[in-house]
């Protein structure tokens, strides 16, 4: 993923973010941090193709997102898992059906779907709630449901907006392990959060939103990091 001098704004409003240039290597793991209202969710929207940049270039899976045609979007979006800040689970579908949704849309067989979904829901601690409607779940349980839906199809890119905002630290850390597990299998992960404790507990690289722009940041460079930049300069991963 590559951002080059990108600016973000809503409609005719002022730029929320500008001069954004960075690139994410495939298989990298980043926290996206910044004050509330800084623009974390907005930046993620660009990444999950719900928004186009006001100016500049956003390149995703080697495609300039400004020039994508409508019929190209579904295939790209199936490679992206998103945990929305407001969950966006579907109210009239059971936990199982919610998580199964991306697989059904992708056209998998029902028997396979059931097996995968049941297993994953067990992993996020919802084994006893397979047939429950989201409204009967707690906030934290809904969040885990949203996470399960985002990771079920093993996306190439996982974008999570405050995925641990409604759970205690024990579950929060467990969910982080889930993300790391996925990351080890090659998924590029970006997690927006302002949970400093969580961020400091892991040594992942950071994208920091400050003063209306985004800076890449390596919090505690490992011993070898002097010879290996934590985050590659823009342009070096044009084919991510």
């Amino acid at each position, binding site marked *: 993923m590559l951002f080059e001098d990108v600016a973000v704004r809503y409609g005719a409003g002022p730029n929320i973010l500008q001069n954004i240039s960075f690139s994410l290597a495939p298989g990298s793991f980043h926290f996206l941090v910044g004050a509330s209202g800084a623009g974390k969710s907005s930046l993620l929207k660009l990444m*999950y193709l*719900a928004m186009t940049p006001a100016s500049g270039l956003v390149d995703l899976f080697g495609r300039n997102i400004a020039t994508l045609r*409508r*019929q190209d*979007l*579904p*295939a790209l*979006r*199936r490679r992206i898992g*998103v945990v929305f800040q407001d969950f*966006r689970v*579907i109210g*009239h*579908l059971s936990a199982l*059906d919610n998580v199964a*949704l*991306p697989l*059904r*849309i*992708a056209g998998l067989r*029902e028997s396979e779907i059931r097996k995968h979904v049941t297993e994953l829901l067990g992993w996020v601690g919802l084994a006893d709630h397979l047939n429950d409607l989201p409204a009967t779940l707690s906030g934290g349980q809904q969040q885990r449901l949203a996470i399960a*839906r985002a990771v079920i199809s093993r996306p190439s890119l996982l974008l999570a907006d405050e995925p641990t905002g409604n759970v205690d630290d024990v579950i929060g850390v467990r969910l982080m392990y889930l993300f790391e597990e996925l990351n080890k299998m090659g998924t590029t992960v970006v997690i927006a959060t302002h949970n400093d404790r969580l961020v400091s507990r892991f040594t992942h690289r950071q994208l920091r939103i400050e003063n209306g722009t985004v800076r890449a940041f390596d919090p505690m460079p490992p011993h070898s990091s002097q010879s290996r930049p934590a985050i590659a300069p823009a342009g070096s991963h044009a084919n991510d």
Partner: protein
Amino acid sequence: MAWRRSDLPLHGDPAARFLPWILGFLVYLSALIVGCSLMIDQLADNWRTSLAGNLTVELPIDPALGTKARADRLDAVIDLITATPGVTGATVLEQAELERLLRPWLGDAVGELDVALPTMIAVTLRPDAVIDRADLRNRLTAVVPDTRIDDHGDWVDDALHFLRSMQALAVFLVALVLTTAAATVIFVTRTGLAVHQPVIEILHLVGAQDSYIARQFQTQSLRVGLTGGIIGTALAILTLVAMKPVLGSTTLDMADMGDGSGVTAGHGLMQGLTGGLGLTPWHLAALCILPLAMALLAMLTARWTVLRSIHRSL
């Protein structure tokens, strides 16, 4: 699977809940119109075939002739007619019979009528007989000048033309009803798109194609169209069956009045004009296409509406 669960709870929409009833009613109307049109078709056939087997020969009044001469003249004419190939019978209508047929027009005064009535001969033909009308007239006028032959041709043409106009009207009405059905489906689908916009957005964001979302709507519309269609058609068939006696008597009147002189071969003809009018199994089968047609129309309309509207969303 699509029948088992759907990602959008479309059946619960307030606008959609009335859709089966509206479509059912519209199918009911179409089925009635189509049913009547099929019966008109049958009626036209009946008229054509029964009247094709009949001729009326009318001998003018000749006050100069005595009773004996009149009887001889009649015998000569009857002989001539029955000798014509294709003719199976010729019956002279008695004065009493004529009076009976004229009574609806003239009232009871017909009995006191003192005028001489023309002699009418009802000629029955083999169903497949082709009579050379001009030749028959020539031969008849040679015996009795001014003899008239009425094969009801003009009247049948007029009547058939009338029936055809009725059928054209029926086609127009069905087209109107189907347009209304399509417009209703468009309205309900648009409402559904608006109501479920948040869920549709989620479906898009997890990678659903437009056609996947359209499928949710078209499956629902197909189901509703089929349900409404079956109920509407069933009720229409019941109505048509219940209407049969009414229809029968109406057409009897029409046949009676339409037959100008009111003087023809009598009961046999009337029976032929209206007998057996009603829905045949073949007609019922044709009517059963309606629910399928409505389901298909609803489905395609919903799909078209979704694909057209959804372009504006993300």
